[in-house]
């Protein structure tokens, strides 16, 4: 059997004295679509950055398809929180998306990388925006540009950090529908504080607040939520003792 896309063993990380992650174990198999929820400052972004190799854990090991993250660059597509970089930088949408091609084939011809970038823009319904400066996009458009940029690298794993934090419900839904389609071809990890939306689209769900609570299912147990949020379950529940969030088929939220 081949090595799993993501394998974390006993990963811990701290900023100064404050523990951010403690003894996190996580194994994802091909085709998994994991939603990680948790409070702000619960370690979601840190966990993603450790998987990407942008941060090194203080303890524990990380393997991407059996190899260390630093040797797996280009395997993972990354969609950062969009507020994290300088949107006034002079670069247009097409060049931004072409960044995703840089690691794929070092000597790729311009024509080919442009075509790949345009195809990625098509998939997020932004084909008409290729020549726009990124500083002139709305939050939702920029978010989709970042997804296209990650897709352009033809990743086998896709990591997204709060991909719908800055967009309205309608665009958020189209992002999730896109991710559901993509999850047939790649392993996806999605971090969000938006418990309700996330649980309707992902295959499995985990709660993260320094420690990771994960049972490889889509059901959130009251214990998971309570452990992660440190607050009574009925903050997020509807009264069912065990099913705190509706399943995919049950009546919708709208």
């Amino acid at each position, binding site marked *: 059997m081949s090595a799993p896309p993501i394998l974390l063993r006993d990963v811990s990380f701290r900023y100064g004295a404050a523990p951010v992650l403690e003894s996190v174990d996580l194994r994802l198999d091909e085709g998994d679509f994991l939603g990680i929820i948790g409070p702000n400052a619960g370690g979601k972004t840190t966990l993603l950055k450790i998987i990407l190799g*942008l941060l090194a854990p203080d303890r524990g090991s990380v393997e991407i398809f059996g190899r260390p993250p630093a040797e797996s660059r280009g395997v993972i597509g*990354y969609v950062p929180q969009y507020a994290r*970089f300088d949107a006034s*930088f002079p670069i*247009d949408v097409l060049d931004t998306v072409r960044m995703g091609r*840089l690691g794929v084939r070092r000597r790729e011809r311009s024509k080919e990388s442009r075509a790949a970038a345009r195809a990625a823009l098509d998939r997020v319904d932004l084909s008409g925006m290729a020549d726009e400066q990124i500083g002139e996009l*709305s939050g939702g458009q920029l978010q989709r540009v970042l997804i296209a940029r990650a897709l352009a690298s033809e990743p086998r794993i896709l990591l997204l950090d709060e991909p719908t934090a800055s967009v309205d419900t309608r665009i958020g839904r189209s992002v999730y529908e896109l991710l559901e389609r993509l999850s047939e071809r790649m392993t996806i990890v999605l971090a969000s504080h938006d418990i*309700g939306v996330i649980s309707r689209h992902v295959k499995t769900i985990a709660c993260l607040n320094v420690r990771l609570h994960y049972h490889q299912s889509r059901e959130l147990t009251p214990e998971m939520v309570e452990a992660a949020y440190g607050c009574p379950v*009925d903050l997020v529940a509807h009264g069912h003792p065990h099913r705190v969030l509706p399943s995919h088929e049950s009546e919708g939220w*709208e």
Partner: protein
Amino acid sequence: MMGALEYEFFQRALVAGLLAAVAAGIVGTFVVARRISSISGGLAHAAFGGIGLGYLAGFPPMAGALAFGLLSALGMGVVELRLRQGLDTLIAMVWAVGMALGIIFASLAPGATPDLLSYLFGNILFVPPAYLWFTAALDVFLLLVVVRLYRPLQAVAFDEEFSWVAGVPVAAMFLLLLGLTAVTVVILIRVVGVILVIALLTIPAAIARHWTGGLDRMMLLAAAIGAVGITAGLFVSYGLSANVGLDIPTGPFIILLVAGLYGVSASARFLLGRRRRAGSREAATGPPGETSAPLASVRAGVAGSAGRQ
């Protein structure tokens, strides 16, 4: 006014200025886009330490300047990559430390304290002939690097984290950018002086940003704007001197001219409005009733639990 072209010093100044505008347009575009405009001043003054050491130890001061400028740039780069200290902070540090070293080295030199500052205030009307060739070589080198490595350099200047994840050699590209900036600043100090270097690495690129997006177009436009400013400045200041008897130092005059261009450009940009702002906004707001239902239910849950207490 065209009579100026008969003088060799004027021809040399014009050629030097045009060559300097190309290098400054390329490097200035990266510097402005990356928001580290103070780096030209910082590295110029870091180089000052090398000028002092050159005097003290008896090697060519400009060799010391180049070494100090490069080492400061690479040192800042390594610290930034490891510690994320913030380039603005590191720039201010190398600025002050370079000046301090230069002053100390000069004070240790035997005999009268040399006037090291004159090295920082190169004069475009008295460019050493060798520096025409240095600047031409610098231009060719910068063009080769930018043509060959445009996309990785652009990616690293824009978003280091994503570039690393995608597999770009981020550290190498980042240090290359800083190293190119250092070499450019040090060579241009001798050609046009520290003050004009700071102006040429900042103002033309800032004007170009008003009218175009994309580093490649900004570089072309910035180089052109710098060239126009230098040419006009040389001719006008010569004309004022020859015809009116008004002797205005050429370098500072060029700076005022380019800064004036910035004022005109900024006003025009302001009057014309930001580019297509209104048109490119998508209908980002759905119907008001559509605000995230799950969140609403969480709020309802909070209300419910509070009510039970």
